[in-house]
């Protein structure tokens, strides 16, 4: 009996375990057989664009990143934004800086600077510039289960969830079948009128890891999620969330290779998420033409409060 229990424990430890607290930007491309934690960390690496010194999504003509939120049977709400992520900050103790400016709608001119610290125990800092009162306000890091921008994505989905927050189990390899999901019949606005919002079918036939990640928090909004992660690029194409045995949400991510040596160097083409209970959908569509990686920006100290205050004033 004792031996049986021991074997079960050893076998389980091969498949599941606790991920390391920090994922290094220098995380090497893996080789050989991978554990569940290895896959989770590699995927984290990809989603945080650690292959790039910086990653930006700007504006080119009418083309710009659009976040489209749509409740079931309703007209969509569209937000357009620019974003610049710096993975090689010069300031001490800073891991990354992320600058975002909203370009339209009620938030037009609102800027946000997010600072991620090297000390993983330290929360991220959020600075928001509100043009109507000409003030910058600092906010503490939001909760991981809070909605990101009113969307179907949580802050955890987008940036805050770390491998240590979950217990991972590799369910094996599989072949991804079919295209990714996409928001259909999008009512176009000025910025999305010419956007090619089409389902990404390049995923069909790709070999993927099936990674089951169980939330470590009790009573979390999902019990576990299953991600389909490319075995070569470690980009996650699809994540299915389960609560009480029922699937509650799906997030699909379309990836575009940056063409660098590191197979993990890819960036987002679009995100599409849907909450199954409500039918609410979110689509973050990033035109390929507006994406820049490892760009040399002219402005000195671009990722600063000063930029945050100054830049939106140029937006009319």
């Amino acid at each position, binding site marked *: 009996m004792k031996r049986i229990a021991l074997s079960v424990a050893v076998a389980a430890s091969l498949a599941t375990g606790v991920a390391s607290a920090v994922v290094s930007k220098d995380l090497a491309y893996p080789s050989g057989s991978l554990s569940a934690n290895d896959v989770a960390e590699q995927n984290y690496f990809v989603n945080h664009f650690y292959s790039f010194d910086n990653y930006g999504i700007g504006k080119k003509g009418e083309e710009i990143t659009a976040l489209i*939120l749509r*409740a079931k049977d*309703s*007209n969509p*709400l*569209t*937000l*357009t934004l620019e974003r610049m992520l710096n993975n090689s900050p010069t300031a001490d103790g800073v891991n990354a800086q992320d600058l975002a400016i*909203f*370009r*339209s*709608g*009620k*938030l*037009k001119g*609102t800027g946000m600077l997010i600072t991620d610290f090297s000390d993983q125990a330290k*929360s991220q*800092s*959020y600075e*928001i510039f*509100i*043009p*109507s*009162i*000409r*003030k910058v*306000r*600092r*906010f*503490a890091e*939001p*909760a991981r*289960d*809070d*909605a990101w*921008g*009113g*969307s*179907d994505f949580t802050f955890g989905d987008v940036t805050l969830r770390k491998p240590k927050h979950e217990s991972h189990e590799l369910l094996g390899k599989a072949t991804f079948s079919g295209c990714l999901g996409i928001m259909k019949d999008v*009512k*176009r*606005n*000025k*910025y*999305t*009128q010419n956007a090619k919002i089409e389902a990404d079918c390049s995923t069909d036939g790709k070999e993927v890891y099936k990674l089951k990640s169980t939330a470590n*928090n*009790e*009573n*979390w*909004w999902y019990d576990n999620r299953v991600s389909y992660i490319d075995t070569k690029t470690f980009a996650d194409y699809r994540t299915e969330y389960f609560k009480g045995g029922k699937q509650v949400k799906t997030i699909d991510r379309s990836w575009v290779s940056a063409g660098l040596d590191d197979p993990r160097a890819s960036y987002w083409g679009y995100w599409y998420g849907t*909450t199954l209970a*409500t039918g*609410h959908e979110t689509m973050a569509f990033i035109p390929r033409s507006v994406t820049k990686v490892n760009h040399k920006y002219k402005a000195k100290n671009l990722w600063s409060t000063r930029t945050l205050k100054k830049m939106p004033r140029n937006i009319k």
Partner: protein
Amino acid sequence: MNNFAKRYAAFAIANRKLILALMAFFTLFMGYFIQDLDIRNDPDTLLPETNRYVATNAYGEQKFGFGNIMVVGFVLKDCVGGDDPYSDADQIINFDPETGLRINESAPVKMTQNICEAAGGAWETLDDVYQPWFVNMVQKAHNDMVALKHSRGNNFMDIAAQKIKYMGTSEDGGLKFERLIPVAGINTTDKQVAGTQLAHLKKGIETNPVLAPMLMLKQAKDGRRCEFAQEGWYDDETCKAKGFFIVGDYADTVKSDYLPWVTSTIALVDEIKAEHGDRVEVRIAGEPYFLAFMLYDLVQKWWLFAISFLIVVAMLWYLNKGWRGSVFPLIGVVATIIITLGLMGFTAYKLTTMMVLTPMLLLAIGTGHAVQVVRRYQSELHTNGILPMSAAERAIATTIVPATLAIVTDMVGFFTLSFVDISFYKAYAYFGMFGMMTILITTTTIAPILMAMFPGKNTQVDASMVEASKFEKGMAKTLTSVIMGKMKIIPIGMVVALVAWSAVQTKVFEPTVDSPMPGVEVGINYSRAAFKYDSDANIDLRRLGEVMPGVISVNIPIKGKVANFPMLPACSYDGSQAPGTPCWDEDEDAPQGAFNNAEVMAAIEKTEDWMRSHPNIGFTGSYIQFLKIVNMLMMTPEGQEPNLKYFHVPNEAFISQNMDVYGDPEDPQWVPDANEIVTGFNGLLEANTNAGDLDSFVAKGWNEGVIMGFVNTMDPVKTHQTVKDIQQFFKDNENEKGFNLVEWGYKSGDTILMPESGKTVTIEDSGTDTVAVGGFLGATEATHDVAEVEYIKSPLITALAIFVIAALIFGSPLIAAILTSTLLVTLFGQYGLGAYFTSVENWSGNLHFATLVSLSIAMGLGVDYGIYMISRLREEMQLTGGQWAKSLQNTLETTGAAVFASIVVLLASFIPLLMTQLANTWALGVFISEALIIDVVLALTIIPLMVYIFKPKYVFGKK
């Protein structure tokens, strides 16, 4: 016996097997549809949709939700242990110390140290809610309530809800929004960690100006509720945290699933009570629970229906002298009930629990008719010595005409209800008429046939079977001497006394502009109208009313006026839009909609401030509360804790008064634009809340929103006054800045497109241009609107209809006048009873819109006794050659006794109506019983007296 009656009887006897087979088949067929009964108690569907209050309420609920709010309160007990001390307290508050009445709600007695110690409990007032077990209990309840079917988890408001946040500053001075309690609950193993978590919760909830008043109870030492930020609010010695509340929201689908849902809810609450009931008061209320519990209570009390039925069986057995006389008539009555219930299911009509009256009335009335026909059968069989089947034929032939006449008048009582545009009035009308009609076949025809088909032994002549009992003979003799002698003053005096008492109660001689009978309150106290005072549901509701700011919802939809907010259509970029077409580009153009206008926001703020200062309104909420919080967080200087000074709408006036924070030090001349600030904050809220979080308060187009409020009284007089005060407030402010830019509520003549149903409703002209409100307060006021018209009109129409029909049936306007005059006496007696209940504030018994139906129904049923009496008097006068005294005594001995038996059967049938926790069925039972008892007394005394005095030809002949 006329030819038609003879032919009908002969036909029925000749085709008896076919009739029986058809009845059996039809009963089984209709019985199949009983499973489809849709009993949902939905007050939204009861009233006419064109009523301005109903339309406002429907629009508010369909557009913004929160139509099915359930509240569960957890209050730490001051009295722990003992022999159920809270039960004692609940019983104690039933009695007013001065009048001794148990029904006065104005000064409920709370749990006191004396009550506690008298019950052997320990008086412990030192603890507050900030204990791990208490907080974790609330969190578990939240999770369980969200897990219930039909829940809208996103709309839940309580300390465990994701969207309810701690708002403060972080260590580095940044603004912080965090859950009030960790997702995993308060730590139960490490006291230090738990202490930190509880301190976080305490600060987060007690400093939140929007949520603290709604979601927690702080209580002063005298047991009174502390209001947010009042003196001593932050001092635990003065105001101690004693309770938390969960405000849950459920989808409309719950209405078609009430019984399973409420069973799960009760199980959930019982589980909490079993584990924590010794230390925590767990109280539950809210529309879906309240309405579903009515159905639950009826189902739980199934045994009352069984007892009632057995009493009827026993009564029939006694009256009809054997089991045959009991079982055979009841086969027909039960068939009628099954067929009528089946029709209700088949038509999928949305019913209320009040419809339980219909089967019980069918039982009572059907049995009453059965008594008449079975006694007649036995009389024919045992007196004349004829064969059973011949006796059955003669019984049918002799009773079918008066039975038809009586049933027609029963149907008239129901029929006149169909003119009132209230769904359950119509349900009573349609199904009542149908049920009554079937009695003609199932009971008055089938009962004697069955008796004759299974007659038993020695059926030829048995005088004992027809001989009147001693009681019947005694009653007939006594009443005859009363009517014919000086003692007639007794029934006359009783009538005079009844009328005088009713006149005093109704104050009919002190009419006002608003009411011809000011003593009769026609407004409704919904909770008391639904449940009895000492019902579980009402005890919980009253207690929640004490510890929460209010429990009766009111909503006021707000919509930008087209002239001010034209709301251009969104620009289309797919080539379909003609060049030059005016349109709105959400990316380029300034935001449109009233809720992007600072002055409109300030007007809503002023309205909410006024409402909160109203003595009958406890709490309000609207989108501006979100806006005010954002303003407070954004404008409080960095590093400081959020300052309530800035918990305000940033309109032009407020900005100019606070330029120290709104100004730009680098640009002293710059003054921010109020509308831009509001728009910017709206954008922040839109992008930083979960999908649907704001939808309950502001519509997606930003041109419509709603003020939600909670009224702290259910007293119909006070709720009516509250509505009037709200209407006057909007009248006084209609030209003020901001107020004049939007429409508040809906008014006469407005046309509304209902968001969910897609119906277009044009509001009927109510003769006023005042603003209508929605919510339960609106529904309450709508019933007032309807009731103040119908409480006189509806029964008078019934009386008129009965007069006409009686005149046609008897060919005698005089007979019709005699019958109708007695009905008017009965009606006035019912008004008197309603006024009495009003005077003692028994809001289960006043004549509100739900009990008004009893006036018409009782009128239709009550006239039956007079019809049977007059028919029999005529028959006896013919048989005795015009000997009045003999005819009267014979009539009283036969028909009079049957009438008396009918009323006993009716009262037995009403046992379930009177004995459950439901007040509406109780009130219907009381009013109908009162009326029928008066009608029986009048039928046995006053009607013969009037017949004797006025000597109508129908009875006395042409001589």
